[in-house]
Each structure stands twice: as structure tokens, then as C-alpha cells.
């Protein structure tokens, strides 16, 4: 009888561990079971990628539509080449849309905001944004302002 009580308590202990893992997965890390391969890849080149990092979000009108896979230097143009995965359901982004690096809040992380264009054609897998706008660099803005060159 004592042995059985112990067994039940140990079983509950292990279950509590499993429940804790589940809680950490779902509530703390916000894990969603998205199947792989339901995204397509688009590219964008920026003069200054700022603090953009892999797994940063890509959004349209404030709604998350994908995330950044890679930020690397292009060896020919010396621009930042950003690779992003867009959800396959968002398949009608106009081809002349522009990608803009924005900051969420004053100190928040940077993300890419897609500002839709008017083209009838849509971006497809492997396409590149023609129009981009680099990260806003407050330091550079202030120094430009101070030396009287205006904004850049």
C-alpha cells in the first residue's frame, strides 16, 4: 500500500514535469506547430541593416507575415542582403512594394515593414524588393543636422 502511494506520487511528479515543459513550450515560448515549407523566400538589399537579426519579424500594416532568416553582406555591392521567409498564405504582395526597416518603440527590436505598392504582379519565391529604406540611424541624423546637410 505504501509502495502504491509512492508510485502514484512519483507518477504525479513526472506528470508535473511534463506539464511544466508543456507550459514553457506553449505559454512562455509561444511555440506553434507550424509545418515547415509553408513559406516562400524573398530578398531585400539595404544600405544599412541596423540591428536587424535572424528571427526578427516581417510585418505588413503591423501584422506579422513572416520572419528574417539571414542577414549577410553582399560582397559586390557591399550592401546588407536580407533573406526573409514570408508565409505562403500571403501570396499577393505587389511586386513594387518597398521594404522598410523600422524600430518597435524607442528601444525595441528592429523589424521589416512591407509597404504595399500598386503593381498587379505579386512577389514570388526568390524575388527581390526593388525599393528599400534603411534603418533610421539617429546618430547619423543628428550629425547631419548639426553639420547642416539635412537628412539623408
Amino acid at each position, binding site marked *: 500500500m505504501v509502495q502504491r502511494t509512492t508510485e502514484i506520487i512519483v507518477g504525479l511528479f513526472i506528470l508535473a*514535469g511534463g506539464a*511544466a515543459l508543456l507550459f*514553457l513550450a506553449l505559454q512562455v*515560448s509561444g511555440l506553434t506547430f507550424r509545418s515547415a515549407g509553408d513559406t516562400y523566400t524573398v530578398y531585400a538589399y539595404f544600405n544599412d541593416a541596423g540591428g536587424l537579426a535572424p528571427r526578427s519579424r516581417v510585418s505588413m500594416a503591423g501584422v506579422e507575415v513572416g520572419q528574417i532568416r539571414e542577414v549577410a553582406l553582399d560582397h559586390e555591392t557591399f550592401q546588407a542582403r536580407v533573406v526573409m521567409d514570408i508565409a505562403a498564405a500571403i501570396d499577393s504582395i505587389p511586386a513594387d512594394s518597398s521594404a522598410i526597416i523600422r524600430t518597435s518603440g524607442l528601444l525595441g527590436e528592429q523589424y521589416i515593414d512591407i509597404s504595399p505598392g500598386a503593381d498587379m504582379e505579386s512577389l514570388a519565391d526568390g524575388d527581390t524588393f526593388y525599393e528599400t529604406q534603411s534603418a533610421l540611424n539617429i546618430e547619423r541624423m543628428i550629425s547631419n543636422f548639426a553639420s547642416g546637410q539635412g537628412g539623408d
Partner: protein
Amino acid sequence: MASSLMDGIARLGRRGLDIIASLGRAGVFLWGALVGAPRPSVGGPLLIQQIYRIGVLSLAIVIVSGLFIGMVLALQGYTILSDFGSESAIGQMIALTLLRELGPVVTALLFAGRAGSALTAEIGLMKATEQLSSMEMMGVDPLRRVMAPRLWAGFISMPVLALIFSVVGVWGGMLVGVEWLGVFEGSYWGNMQASVTFADDVLNGLVKSLVFGVACTWIAVYQGYDCVPTSAGISAATTRTVVFSSLMVLGLDFVLTAVMFGSF
């Protein structure tokens, strides 16, 4: 003069050989205890008994510590983050700190103090009262009968305890941050979910706690098995368990953090 110098060098050498021999014995000991499948009919009840004593009975101290650490993190984080007007990032700070560092490390330190010392003392006393040698006399392998269930119980209990610690800490942080200091609950969870990733943070923390569990339990059981079978020897072995386990946990934590989160 020369001979006392040589004596010193010889002492150093003997010390080094002792340490290496002890490491070798510890390895052989672990191998002997874990290799070879135990019969479930015998091993199962023994294992459950040990999980109860090592894991379940450590639950109280782990939950209370987790609660207080989560609450302290919320208070400290709030005072710093509110200087920048970004106190809504408190959830992400608490969750990342707990999952990556404090959960596994503090649980392992508590585990070494609560369960590890008890294991060493118990096995040391078994050795001092010659229970282990009488088992051998009866043809029962004490490595398999006494050590193996304790080792496995430690390996299983430690990650479970660390997970529970993190969850309780996150909840304690919410208690202080949301209920008391008035951070918006939606941004507490939202910022947390946006910055915590399952593979990088939760699983790496789990791997850490698993490694710490193996290290602490191995040290504790081996120190008991290898102790000098006198009352002074048992007390020295228990001290060594706590000291070695704590140092090992902190050292391993640096190595694991460098491997997991260091960008090189």
C-alpha cells in the same frame, strides 16, 4: 634542502596521481552501475522509491525558491526597466533569465545541497556499517542494487525539478510584475512569447539541467561509495559532495553557456 624540495615535488606527484586515480575509479564506478539492463521487476520499485526520495521530497524547496527568485527578478527588473520606460519587457527578462540560467543552475545547487548530501551520507553510512560488503557476500552487486537506482533517479529528477522551478519562477514574476507593480498582463506574456524560442531557450535549459543532474548525482553517489568508512570520513565526503557539485555546476554552466549562446 634538496631532499625537502624533492619531497615537495613527490607530494605534488602523489597528489596528482591520487586525483587521476580517483577520476578513473569514478568512471569505472559509473560504468559498472549503469551498464547492463536491470531487471524491471527488481529495478522498477527501487527506482520509484529513489525518485520519491530524491525528486519529490526536493519539490518543496525548489518551488519556494523558484517563487521567490521569480518575484525578486520582477522587482529588480521593474526598477531598472522603468528607467527606460520599457517595464513591459519584464516578462521577457524574467523568462530568459530563468530558462537559460537561474532555473538549471539554482535548481542544481539546491539539488546538491538537499539531495546530493543525503545520498553521500546514506551510502557512506552503508559502507561504514558494512552493508555494502555484506551485499557482495550474498552475491548481490551493490553497484546495481544500490547505486544504479539512485543515479537514474537523480538523472530523471533534476530536469523535472528545473522545469518546475522555471514555471514557478515565471508565475512568481507575474504575481509581482502584473498583480502588484501593474505591468499590463498582455504585454507580460506577449513580450515573453516574442523573445523566447522553444529550441534555443527551453530545450537548451533542459539540456543544461540534464547535464547538471548527471554531474551532481554522479559526484554525490561516488563520494559516498568512495568515502573513508568512518564518521569523520563520511562528514568529509558529504562536504566534498556539496563543494564539488557546486563548483562543477558553475563551471559546466560557463562551458555550456559559451557553447549554446556564445556567438563564435
